[in-house]
Each structure stands twice: as C-alpha cells, then as structure tokens.
C-alpha cells in the first residue's frame, strides 16, 4: 500500500486525486510542482491518522486522510490564534463592567468609556508619539547599518561585528537587556523617563529594521549605483535618486514595523519608564493585574485593531520573510 507506483501511473493518479479531492486540489492545480505536492504530503504525525487510510480504499483515500490531517492542524492553529481575539471582541460588547458568558446585551458604551478615559488616552498618545519617533529614527539607523553591512568597504570581520552588535537584542533575553539598560541608566544618572525609553526602543527595533533593510538592500543591483556614479552623480545624489527610491517599499515597511514594535513594547519600557511616563502597554498591564473588565476588553480590541492594521499594511509593502 505504501509503495507508490512509479512512472506512467503517476499522471492518471494525480488526475484521480484532483477529482477525488475537489476544490482544494483544483485550486492547487495551476501551481506546478507544488500542486503535485498538495496531495502527496506527509508528516510524522500523519502516520497515526494515515493508518486509517491504509485500511481504506487505496491511495486516494490515503491522500485524503493526509490532506485532512494538514487541513485540521492548520485550521486548529488559526482557531487557536484568532479565537481568543474574537472572544475578547465579543466580550467587549457587554453592557456591564464585568461581562458574563454569554453577554447580556450589546452595547458600545465601554468603547466610549475607553476613548474618553484621560489615563488611557494620555498613555495612547505617549505610545504613539514614542512610536513615531522610534519608527523614523529606527528606520534611519537601520538603513545606515544595512548600508554598511551590505555595501560597506570595511573588512569583512568588521561588518560581521557590526551585524552581531546590532543583533544583540535578538539573542540576549529581553529581561536581561532591559535590566542592564535600567541599571546603566540609573548608574550613569540618565535617570528614568522619556529619553531612556526612546533610546531603549530605538535599540530594541534596530535589529528588525536593519535586517529587513539588509535583505532588500542585498537584492539591489550594485551596478546601478556604479552607473549613476559613472554618470557623475555624487554619493548623496546616488542615495537620493537611485538607492532610496529602490528601497522605498522596504523603508516604508520598516517604518510601520518599527512603529508596531515600539507601540507594543512592554518589558524594556517597564524597566525604563520610571514613574514619569506611562505607555499604553504599561497602562494595560497595570489594569490587567487589578482584574479583567469590559473596559479592558474594549481597550484591547482598539489596540489590536491599530497594530493589526499597521502590520497588514506593512506586509503589503514587504513580505515578512
């Protein structure tokens, strides 16, 4: 049963498969090798379910089980990801401050309450302000680092070292870095508040913007810049007329991603904010520790909608991989 009949049989078999599997396989039919793959796949965990297929009627049934397995896993993952978000959205519509399941009516009053709450609005504005500065600053710094890493005429090991230092936040646990910056800010006398938070966020987003831009920068044709230079453009002109326009989608995506990262950042802010400023994640975290309420649900929905919209927009300019 496991033996796949090689050779001429393959053709008719995949035809069978398509008709047997209906719409999904049809959707995949146009995609060449991948469409072949679509019915023919497997994973260790498929084997358990696969046994049923072996008892069933031949290879078509077997493929269906396999396909069913993947479909189930992916569907479960999607429910796992988006179910809780939908649940919070549903519970944010409750009329009372402590929603019960199911909710006792539908009301938008808690959204109004959130948007007129002085503390929430102030923390949201703080987060947006920090986010804008960090998005632009982080992208600019990332572009500089990317330029040197990709096109720099420094020695290879120097460029490697630059990449490594910039990548530090990816490898060192955030709590350690955040504590380090907190201790450092305290010892140097920088204190806590807006400036340390801004610097901390810039540092935190730098690897993301750098590597996003490095990836795009590396695909640019170096000879375009050379050609512009040969035609007499200065370095500034090359940057302005050749490199930046070609990088524009990646730069825009980087701005949006950096904003989302900064807007959502919690732990670094937690160590650096002191008592002077409150960002939205800090404000929400403080309230969550007090207790779950409809107010928080409505605030959560607003935050998720804003960051989700930004990320979706950003991925239109540059795929996340």
């Amino acid at each position, binding site marked *: 049963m496991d033996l*796949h009949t090689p050779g001429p049989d393959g053709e008719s078999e995949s035809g069978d498969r398509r008709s047997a599997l209906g719409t999904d396989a049809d*959707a995949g039919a*146009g995609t060449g090798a991948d469409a*072949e*793959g679509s019915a*023919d*796949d*497997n*994973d260790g*965990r*498929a*084997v358990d379910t696969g046994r049923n297929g072996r008892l069933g009627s031949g290879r078509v049934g077997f493929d269906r089980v*396999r396909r069913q397995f993947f479909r189930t*896993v*992916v569907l479960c993952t*999607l429910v*796992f*990801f988006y179910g*809780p*978000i939908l649940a*919070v959205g549903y519970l944010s519509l409750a009329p009372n401050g402590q929603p019960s*399941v199911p909710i006792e009516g539908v009301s938008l009053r808690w959204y109004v309450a959130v948007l007129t709450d002085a503390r929430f609005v102030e923390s949201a504005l703080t987060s947006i302000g920090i986010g804008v500065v960090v998005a632009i600053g982080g992208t600019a710094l990332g572009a*500089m*680092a990317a330029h*040197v890493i990709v096109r*720099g*005429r*420094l020695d290879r090991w120097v460029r490697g070292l*630059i990449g490594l*230092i*910039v*990548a530090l*936040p990816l*490898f*060192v*646990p955030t*709590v*350690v870095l955040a*504590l*380090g910056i*907190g201790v*450092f800010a305290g010892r140097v006398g920088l204190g806590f508040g807006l400036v340390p938070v801004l*610097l901390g966020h810039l*540092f935190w987003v*730098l690897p993301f913007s750098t590597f996003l831009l490095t990836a795009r920068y590396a695909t640019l044709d170096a000879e375009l810049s050379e050609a512009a230079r040969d035609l007499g453009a200065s*370095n500034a002109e090359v940057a302005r007329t050749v490199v930046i326009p070609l990088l524009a989608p990646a730069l825009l995506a980087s701005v949006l991603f950096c904003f989302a*990262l900064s807007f*959502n950042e919690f732990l670094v802010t*937690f160590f650096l904010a002191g008592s002077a400023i409150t960002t939205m*994640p800090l404000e*929400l975290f403080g309230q*969550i520790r007090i207790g*779950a309420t409809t107010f928080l649900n409505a605030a*959560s929905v607003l935050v*998720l909608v804003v960051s989700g919209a930004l*990320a*979706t927009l950003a991925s239109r300019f540059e*795929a*996340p*991989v």
Partner: protein
Amino acid sequence: MATDRRSGFERGRWWPSSPRVRDGLIAFLPVALATCLGVVPLAVMAYESVSPPITLANYAEALGGVYLPVLGRSLLIGVVATAACLLIAYPVTYWLAHVCPARYRLAALITLVLPLWLNYVVLNYAWVWILARGGVLNYLLVALGPLGEPLSLLYTHTSMLIGFLYIYLPYVLLTMYASMERLDYRLVEAARDLGAGDLRVFVDVVVPRTIAGALASALIVYARIAGAYATPEILGGPRNQMISRLIVSAFYEFADWGFASALSFVFLAVVFVGFCLGALSGSVRNELKRW
C-alpha cells in the same frame, strides 16, 4: 565581489575622504546606540554583580537553594513550550511551503504570523477570558455537555504554557518556514517513488533538511520563553514564578541591583551554553546568521 566594489570605488577619485572613513562614520550612529545600550549595560551589570568591592556573594545567593528551583522551572517551561511550538510548526510550515496553493501562500503566511505584531500584553490577557472559570472555554464545555462543572485552568502551569505557545508560535512559524521553503519537494517525491512510507519520508527526508532551521528557531524562542515576564504575570499563578519575576522584584521592590544582575548573568550563562551547543553545528550556525 568585495574586490570588485573596491576597485569600482577607486575609480571615483573625486570623493575626497577614504571610503573606509565614510563607512565608519555611517556605521557610527547605529553601532554606538547598540554598544551603549547593549554591550555597555552588560558590562555595567557584570561590575554591579560582583561589587561592592569584590564579592561573589550575589552569585552565591543566586545559586542558593531558594532561587535555583525557579531557574530550573523557567528552563523546563522554556523547553516544554519550545517543543510544543516545534511540534505544531512542523506540519503547519510544511503545509504552508509544500501543500498550500502558491497563490494563497503569502496571504496564509501573513495570517499565521500576524500575531507577531499584535500587543503581547493584550494577547495574554485575551486568554484570561478563555480560561477563567466563568470564561468562554468553560462555558462551552459545560453548555455543550462534556463537563459537569468548570475546570480551573487559569493561573496554572497549563495556562502559562498555552500563553507561551500563543505568543511564540508565530516566531517559530516564521523561522521554520524559511527552512521548510528551501526543502526541495522533489526529494520527498523521490523518496516516495522509491517506496518510502510516510514516517520514513518524514524522518529521513524532511527532518534532516529542516532540523537546522528548527533548532535555530528553538534556540531563539527558548531564551525568550525562559526569560518572559508578561505571560507568567498575567496567566501564571503565584506558584508559577519564573526567573524574570525574581529579576524584576530584585530591581524594583528590593532595589538590589547587584543581586538582580547576578541572577541575570546566571540566566544568561545558561542561555549562552544553549547557543554554544547549537553553534557547534555549522548548519545551525548558518541558520542563526540568517536571523
């Protein structure tokens, strides 16, 4: 390539300063920022953890009987949650890279990694409403019949693990997808044509080709889970303390920066050992570099 560019540049003699100096200047700002906020604070912490004047007392305390179990628990939870992430990520990324029709692939990928960009404080909070005694899951289980009375799921190890899976699975999906995409599907077909069963294809073709990517993403996520703060605070109970909680309270509540630093370094050392073990394998090292 590099020599090409260098010679190409030397042609442009009209630029007065040396290209190395110019690149150095461009690199200065980002590198200075990363050094001042990454390298220097680590050095300050190292100093802090052994002062005043020179003592290992902080390390002795951090490695003492009270705190070691917390570190152990953090690492264990990190391992379990990471393994769960990989277990789910394997079929999902395989589906994404080799089963999903190409024209839906980007949309599916974006849908699956979108939670990366959402606020993780809020995402953790959402699970409070799912898992609470009066929450959605218990309501469904009781209303639909399988349970007589609601389960106490919230503020346990289980809720914490679910939270970690929720927050970190998208990272694993993203990194695993990159290596799953590079798996040549013709190899799977060839193995099948040669008579390999499902398990054999998975063990002999899929795993060897993707294990480096899986380990690299595991290393990255493992360190983050073991050092997470928000998830245990929101979804964990008082008995599920993790290392970050200790570090935060040493910093905030006791203002004992030396001890907080020592704890961090012990934790960092353990994570670092993991990275070194991973980096022993050249292919994992390459995967990590891709990040």
